[in-house]
């Protein structure tokens, strides 16, 4: 049996998350870590969208083709899509903040190696 598109998307999402986590834990370069987190963030977003997907339905936009009356039976679940939008925005904010941090850290220490920033410990 062929996997459905939702299953494929779900699998892709989880693989991305794992790749992202793996990268974040193994790459010592701050920028690479940030990229890895972006990957895992994308993975999470794909999973969210895949959850809301329903086979054979259309996008949850009410227009000429889909009217309000029969929307319930014709569109996919709109909630995950709304969530994903928010998640993307927040992800953008956090990524931007991390990049700013990386910039400042580099300015201060001329290094992007996470293992160099361990004065605070124990």
């Amino acid at each position: 049996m062929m996997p459905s598109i939702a299953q494929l998307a779900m699998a892709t999402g989880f693989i991305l998350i794992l790749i992202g986590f793996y990268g974040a834990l193994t790459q010592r370069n701050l920028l690479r870590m940030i990229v890895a987190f972006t990957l895992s963030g994308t993975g999470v977003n794909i999973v969210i969208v895949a959850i809301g997907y329903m086979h054979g339905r259309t996008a949850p936009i009410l227009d000429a083709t889909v009217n309000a009356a029969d929307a319930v039976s014709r569109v996919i679940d709109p909630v995950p899509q709304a969530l994903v939008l928010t998640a993307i925005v927040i992800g953008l904010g956090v990524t931007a903040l991390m990049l700013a941090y990386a910039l400042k850290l580099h300015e201060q220490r001329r290094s992007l190696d996470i293992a160099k920033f361990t004065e605070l410990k124990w």
Partner: protein
Amino acid sequence: MVSPLYLIVLALAAAFLLGLLNPERRGRAYAVTLVALAGMTLISADWLWAFTMEGIDPVDVYTAGAEPPFAINLRMGLAEAALTLLVNLTGLLSALYLKDVLLAGGRRTMAVLLISVMALVGIILTRDLFNLFVFFELVVISSAGLVLLANDKDGGPASGLSLSAGFKYLIVSQFISAFLLLGIIFAYHATGTLNIDGMANASLGLATGGTIAFFLMFMAIVAELKPFPANGWALDIYESAHPAFSAIFSAATGAAALYAVDKLLLIGGAEWLPIATGIGIVTFIAANLFALPQTHDRRLLGYSSIAQTGLVLVVLGQRDLLGDSTPFIAFGLLISHAVAKAGLFWLSGLLKNRQLADWAALRQRPLLVFAFVTFTAMLTGLPPFPGFYAKWELVHQLAGAGQFTLLGLILLGALIEAGYLFRWFGYLMKREAPVETVPCTGHKVGPVLVAVAAGWALAYLWGDLAGGLFGRDNLLLALPLLFALSFLLLDWLPAWIKNSLAIAGMVAFFLLTWGEYDPLRLIFAIIFLIGGALTLLASYSVHGRRIGFYPAAMLMYAGMVMLIRATTSFDFFAAWELLTVGSYFLILRGKHSEPHALSYILFSLGGAFLILAGFALAAAGAPQFDLASLAQVAAPAAPWVFVLLAVGFMTKTAAIGLHIWLPGAHAEAETDVSPMVSGILLKAGLYGMMVLLLAMGKQQLYGVELTHVLLWIAALTALIGNLMAVFQEDAKRLLAYSSIGQMGYALFGLALMNHLGWLMALVFVINHYIYKSMLFLAVGGVAKRTGTREMYKMGGLIRLMPLSFIAVLIGIIAVSGVPPLSGFGGRWVFYNAIMSAEYRLPMVVLFMAGPIAFLYLFRLIYTIFLGQLKDELRRVKEAPFWIVLPQMIYVALLLVFAVVPGLALRHVDAYLNQFFPEGGLHWGGGTIISDYGYWNPVAIMIIVGVIFTTVFALLLIVNRKAQMVKQFNIVFSAERPFRPETTHYAWNFYAPYRKAMGFLTQPFVTRFWDTLADLLHTAGDLGRRLYDGNGQSYGFHFLAFVVIVFFVGGI
């Protein structure tokens, strides 16, 4: 009532308004920020008022014109009102505190602060999962911004450090938010709703994948509580961030995250409670252990914050068991932690240096020291603060449900925490202060003082709540406690006025209440109140203001009075803690008493925890019980209750094994404090033993008679205590060890559990008070004049200090128990008592201890007052009048008590008849008759007097031609010895005896406790190395935490 939505609207509007302002008009921006935060605080306070005073119902606020699950709803209830008030107030005060930083940082910084507070409020109010996620992310972003407020100028280590801490935080929060999002979306998939209450109703756990979904969410939210081991990032933030932000991070963020967990547990249901408990208790223990080897103040506070949050998580995890009292306990612990921790972080910002010992600079400002004391007491759960009631209730409920392991772990962790906090306070009071002035600017000191005021207000509030719970008056309103606390306000007065007030107050209280005591308690009341007033006469010798002395001393006396007046277990325990704390502050006042005061408070708190556990076990689920009903405790629990309480009380009487705090504490205390903590304070432990033994009598554990064990402990205590006293060079230490021995005698008498044994114990109680107070004053006076406590440096002082000599002479005659003084009365009763008891062997041991007492007493009088006068001491004067006066009163008392012992004893004898009808004494005229013989004090006095005069006259005649030995008759082979004191006759006075019995005085016990402390330290030091400072390790810790919980929790 303003809609709770305005809490969020106000912050957002103010943040946007800041964007519209002229960036150069910083003062205006700052005003907008403060007004917004103050407005939010007022809204929360208004709601809290409505919920508590008007009793309105929780209110739901719907957004977007639809009801859940179609839109997000917020809820405002009692818990939400209290928590948002906490968050907003912390935010407002921190904003005040940050005045300079915010003005320098400009409107953007202020906007971030506003958003941070708003997001925390949002976490508390929202009932929607995804909304919860959004607010959490806002907290992450704003926190990562506020972390950077630290700068060199403001006492922060360097902004560079906070930069790396912030990045580590972002790394971990990325992992957390991925988990949270995945969890939320799968939970939504399983239940079709994002509403927390809707999801709780839909029983998520039963749906396919529901458990995993919940697990992911739960792990993510719990991670915000900084659980062990996923908390290295938080510690780095605490260490490097601006203290005002740390205050928010600890108090407000912690509270909000805990409430989020609480909401989440609604969805998860009962099966997740044990997991929450497990995470909480492991975090509590680990964080406290790792805090032990800390020397950095803010990192230490960070560890402590993590530990306290863990403890509240334990409470949330036990809510099935705790039932209706969960909010009382959880809020009691949380609010104590929040107020104290915020206060301490603010305090830390006033100091430049970051080592714990640098806090000694705070001594410049007594008010701030008081603030520190308040916060420490709140954190360690001392009365009258909310944590105390919470701890009491928690322990009782856990014991009632048989959760002994958890109970033990909680008490262990609490003891470790008390250990490092009180060690810190010791540094603060005793270490050399660094050269810096503690700034006293209003906007920085103000928040600290508000926290102090809040602490005391909460103490009053929780006292009221507990009053409702236990059906009693507010503890804070107990007259003796109020009297003691009033000295805090009077501390600006000169010492002599306060001393007079204290004496008057104690005597007046005795006169008011003396009719209420039975004869047994009356003896203790007389010793505590009248005896206490008498020792206070010596305090007139101290001039100046003597800041901090009177509140501490009066707190101790208040505790003791409340102890004998207590009829319920709760009152008794509260009084016990009060007297412990008061005496700790008193002992700490000695010049070199820092380590001794610490070991005193640790043994005492350890003992207090055992007492608490014992009471809880005896209460069997009830919130408290009448002390008299200890007798009704049934079989399996009863011997354990006995053991717990007995060991607890024996920490105060310094029984062997638990005695190591006493010598240092009593010897290093100030001259007039030594008699208080020796002559009077030790009696509190004996009183506890009496209450216990009267109620519970003989108990057997695994077939062992526990009173028999007590006999052995008492006999060994007497023997070792006396033996140790013999080998001391320091006169006050000698007296201190002698107290250990004397307490052994008294304990022995009690453990005999017969009429005469008890009578003997009471004779010891009275005698020991009189002669030990007298001796400590006499020796203290000598030490004051000679500038040393080493006996071999004294000698020949008889002519210079005749009154002190008389006091010591009378004292040692009384202690040694030879006729004619009252000590003999004690011995006489004692010999009668052991004749009628069946335990011979411990009796022999105790008997041996008697002659040993002679050795040290002889040494005391001989080496101080007889022999050659040292050259440098030729100008020594008699001790100050106010130190001699009480001694002379004691001399008179001893003589009176020797001639007419019946004055006090016959009433007690009659009273004891109801408990031990057998073997009482017969009091006829001047004689006292027992089953074995009779004692006529007056006749003995006369006979001894005649013999003494005769022998003295004979000696005078025989020694007429004796030659006075001049000082330089003995020369050390014409050489100056390497250590001159070794040639002094008074040095190592009893060397031969040391050869014979010295092996018994090896410091085995000290070594045992030292090793234990070392082990804990080493464990903490090894454990904390887990946090290696690498952001990736912290990320890995989080994942490891998730995996461990998954497998250990059996999800």
